[in-house]
């Protein structure tokens, strides 16, 4: 029996974004779930690594979930960065309108 985790993301600007782990191989070592660089730089060591998954339905589910979590983390981080860029752009237009007297139509 194979248990396959899936996820779906909905937002006002996105109708539906589906996440599914690919065929693999999958592991419990996620790209986005590593220890923070700050801890390693301060001389810390990572003694909290996840254990390897067992080759059982639940063990494989755990590995596939890690892949899914990576996909979700990357997707949400990209969205956050996009939102930040948009806010910066808006702030820049506002600054130019107020400080430099640039006409809104010109700035577009």
């Amino acid at each position, binding site marked *: 029996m194979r248990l396959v985790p899936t996820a779906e993301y909905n937002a006002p600007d996105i109708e539906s974004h589906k996440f599914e782990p690919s065929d693999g191989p999958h592991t419990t070592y996620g790209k986005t779930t590593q220890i923070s660089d700050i*801890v390693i730089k301060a001389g810390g060591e990572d003694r909290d690594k996840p*254990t390897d998954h067992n080759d059982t339905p639940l063990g494989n589910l755990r590995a596939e979930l890690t892949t899914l979590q990576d996909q979700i983390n990357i997707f949400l981080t990209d969205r956050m960065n996009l939102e930040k860029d948009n806010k910066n752009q808006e702030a820049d237009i506002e600054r130019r309108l107020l400080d430099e007297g640039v006409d809104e139509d010109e700035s577009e």
Partner: protein
Amino acid sequence: MVVDLDKYLKQDKDYYIAIGLEGSANKLGVGIIKHSKGLLSNVNKAKVLSNVRDTYITPPGEGFLPRDTARHHRNWVVRIIKKAIKDANINKFDIDVICFTQGPGMGAPLQSVVIAARTISQIWQIPLVGVNHCIGHIEMGREITGALNPVVLYVSGGNTQVIAYSKNRYRIFGETLDIAIGNCLDRFARTLKISNDPAPGYNIEQLAKKGKHLVNLPYTVKGMDMSMSGILAYIDQLAKDMFGIQKKQLKDEESGEFITKEDLCFSLQEILFSMLVEITERALAHVNSNQVLIVGGVGSNERLQEMMKLMIQDRKNGQIFATDERFCIDNGIMIAHAGLLQYRTGGIIKDLKDTVCTQRFRTDEVYIAWRDD
């Protein structure tokens, strides 16, 4: 009226077993407790079957970040649960209830642990109970020490409260207005780059034992409350002046001797603990009590216990109660114990939606159905 604690006892059973999962800060704890049926008393004490803990420790000078602490809990929780069950030597299906810390605490670590609790609850078909972390400390402290109705001093990395019981609530008489006492000590340890192993507060305590000179620090008790951020800023600046680029040397006014790192740790402890003793003494007078119970991680500090003892000895029949580090420092067994009391009075969670954790969860929000005094 005596509270009926056996309304929910399963047929053919004369005891209860609960597993408790704690992870509101950098300690991940899992404990298993057994209550025999009937009221808890000196002849019917709760039995600790196992109490396993693993602490997320960061390098000197660094605090624990929520993300890495949550990762620690996530990656250890299964191993710790397995060890707790093995140590307790029970069958998991003998567990009546799964208890987890619902708050207060750091959001991300709380979240890691509640996910584990929900998962085992669904796999094993065992109900869940969400426990207030502070209530866990209080109830475990009462059970271990036998203190009946004490004024509770709850001092830890995230909380500083003076609490007394009245009409089914643990009511807060005084508390910090800004940072918690453990946070104050931990952050000063970071400034001095003191090791976080086994705990920064413990290492400050050891240094303080070698301190001789009291450095004048602000003393900020405000009514029944206290403030510690100003004291921290003040002593942090002193430490930076002394051990930073300036290498400024301070002298003790009386002896003319140089002030050391040990003196700073000693002074910080003396001032902070004096403030705690003052508000605790006032709370005792308010509620006309003569018992003090110290709980929370900072409660294992021997100097705090000693200062509190000096105060309580001056009161008629005064008694002080404290537990050792197994029960003082965050642990799973206290969550199992308080959760089991909640379970025995019908406090189980009926819908998974109600298992959501919260960073802010005040001690007096919980209705204490298992006490009727």
